[in-house]
């Protein structure tokens, strides 16, 4: 996919932070639309921490799901984001498409700060950034037909002037994602997991987006279907000039599809690297540990190689460790790692690492 790489950034994320108030035991739940930009005025970025202090007692208790993340996605590339469960991958994805309002920092789409954009500009930006969800069973409204699911974005944004045009467009999109256009009047439960995921992709494509955030697009489907979906995403990227951000925990899949890969640990990006260098030249100890967990399909090699096994659990994002977040589990930690948070180090060739021990 590298031939589609341009150097113009489509999306810039600067020092993004997203803290969640801790769930309290009275059954109070977190409401995503509290965080959507509709509610908060754009020029008061500090409003959320204040609110959380009030709600959950002074002194924090906030879950630091994303804790100061910066990266740039270039037009036409596939940007991979990996990390283990709970490291904040999904939160980043959802913040990018506007489902959560960032606690701090900014998301800049084509030069426009999304938290400050209002009115038509905001709606247009929202249209151009879409999301594919992880669970194909939960991401489709069971009471709507496939035609209505794919047609809804068309209705909302007025992309079809009459019923026939709408019908035609829906069938075109269904055809594009490899579904039989004649299934337009069926309900989601009549489809298999892979087909449902295709419906989800069709819905995202219906508004002609430029950037699609794929949140673990294949982790919930069969291995045999995974390849089909991934190949289809690649085909769509070539046909429609899409930019992808793919969130996953499967390194081999990420390496296969991505141009660049960011590795996340506990709300921070620890390493950013071109995917061809990911296996060849991993620098951060966490990246190395992740890579060594990927099984190799050769019993000879597999038996001989030394695996790096991480001790202990991921620390709580409510109260992360001092200094480098990874020092509690790092095999090559230095005394300095305990004290000072490492800065980003540019290793050249587009590779960035945050580690003291290079």
């Amino acid at each position, binding site marked *: 996919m590298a031939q589609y790489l341009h150097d113009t950034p489509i999306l810039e994320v600067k020092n993004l932070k997203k803290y969640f108030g801790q769930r309290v035991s009275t059954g109070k739940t977190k409401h995503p639309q509290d965080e959507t930009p*509709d509610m908060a005025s754009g020029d008061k970025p500090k409003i959320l921490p204040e609110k959380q202090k009030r709600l959950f007692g002074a002194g924090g208790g906030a879950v630091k799901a994303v804790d100061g993340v910066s990266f740039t996605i270039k037009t036409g590339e596939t940007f991979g984001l990996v990390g283990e469960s709970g490291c904040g991958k999904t939160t980043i994805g959802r913040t990018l498409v506007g489902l959560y309002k960032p606690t701090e920092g900014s998301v800049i789409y084509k030069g426009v700060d999304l938290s400050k954009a209002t009115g038509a500009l905001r709606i247009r930006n929202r249209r151009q950034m879409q999301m594919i969800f992880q669970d194909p069973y939960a991401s489709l409204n*069971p009471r709507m037909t496939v035609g209505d699911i794919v047609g809804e974005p068309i209705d909302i944004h007025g992309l079809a002037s009459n019923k026939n045009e709408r019908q035609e467009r829906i069938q075109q999109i269904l055809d594009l994602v490899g579904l039989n256009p004649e299934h337009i009047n069926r309900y989601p439960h009549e489809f298999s997991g892979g087909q449902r995921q295709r419906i989800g992709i069709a819905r995202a494509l219906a508004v002609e987006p430029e950037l699609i955030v794929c949140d673990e697009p294949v982790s919930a489907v069969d291995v045999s279907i995974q390849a089909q979906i991934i190949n289809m995403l690649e085909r769509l990227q070539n046909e429609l000039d899409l930019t992808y951000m793919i969130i996953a925990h499967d390194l081999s899949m990420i390496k296969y599809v991505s141009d660049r890969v960011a590795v996340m640990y506990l709300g921070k990006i620890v390493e950013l690297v071109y995917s061809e260098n990911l296996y060849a030249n991993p620098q951060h100890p966490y990246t190395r540990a992740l890579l060594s967990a990927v099984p190799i399909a050769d019993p000879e090699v597999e038996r001989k190689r030394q695996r790096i096994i991480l001790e202990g659990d991921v620390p709580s994002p409510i109260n992360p460790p001092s200094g480098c977040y990874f020092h509690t589990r790092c095999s090559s930690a230095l005394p300095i790692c305990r004290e000072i948070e490492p800065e980003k180090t540019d290793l050249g060739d587009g590779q960035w690492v945050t580690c003291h021990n290079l």
Partner: protein
Amino acid sequence: MKLSKELFSFLQSKEIQVDIVRPSTTYWQDAWRRLKQNPVAIASLILIVLIILVAIVGPLFSPYSYSAQNFDSTNQGPSAEHWFGTDGLGRDLFTRVLHGARISLSIGFVASLLTLGVGVLYGGIAGFAGGRVDNIMMRFVDIMYSIPFLLWVIMMMVYLKEILPENAGLISIYIALGLVFWLPMARIVRGQILSLKEQEFILAAHTIGASRWRILIRHLIPNCVGPIIVTATLAIPEAIFTEAFLSFIGLGVSAPKASWGMLASDALTSLKSYPHLLFFPAGAICITLLAFNFLGDGLRDSLDPKMRK
């Protein structure tokens, strides 16, 4: 087994296409199609329509008036002249049951419509808005709940009797029931919405740019339809019984008007001597309630596309 070559031939490209486009139907057409396949629900629906029709036009064809007393024929059993017999004042019970149907059914319908309209929207908005709005809205419901339901209705009835004109008994029942009947529905719908709104298809609706109103109406409420229908169907008998109780303690419709509950409670005093006075109104209540429950059941199933066969 031997298969000769003649048994095989190439398909024409037209024949390969076996998938036929399912006719485009709206959600409600689809639900109606499924409901039609449920004989019990359809029988109930027909029965309810019949009861409503009889309640509307029946009294017009009856030779007796619901209030005309005839002391020559009191407490008669069922006969050719008086199908359901007569009561202690010689009034034709059949005519009174038909008249009672008007009052009881209208109370049931008003209660369930209010439950549907007010309760679903109130609970939906509270659950969807969340946070402080939800807190304030639901504490108000809790306050309403904390007053015993009948006490509340009785208080309203007494108060409304003061401010409304003399013959407004029925209207004050509507208002009193309306004020309390939507409460359980609001709670149920809010609970459903709270659990639904975190689902990915709601997040997806946000990302494609759907307005909050659209998400509430198109995505959230249709997915709570099962509990909504059940609660709304249960509201009908509850309202009929509440009205019966109110009539029993003298706060319901005033004599000589009759509701099913009132007819039943009147009959209790002479139950041992004239049991038929209780059987007919009580039977009417039973049949209606059964029909509504079966219809509600059928509706719940037919509104769920997963039940599509």
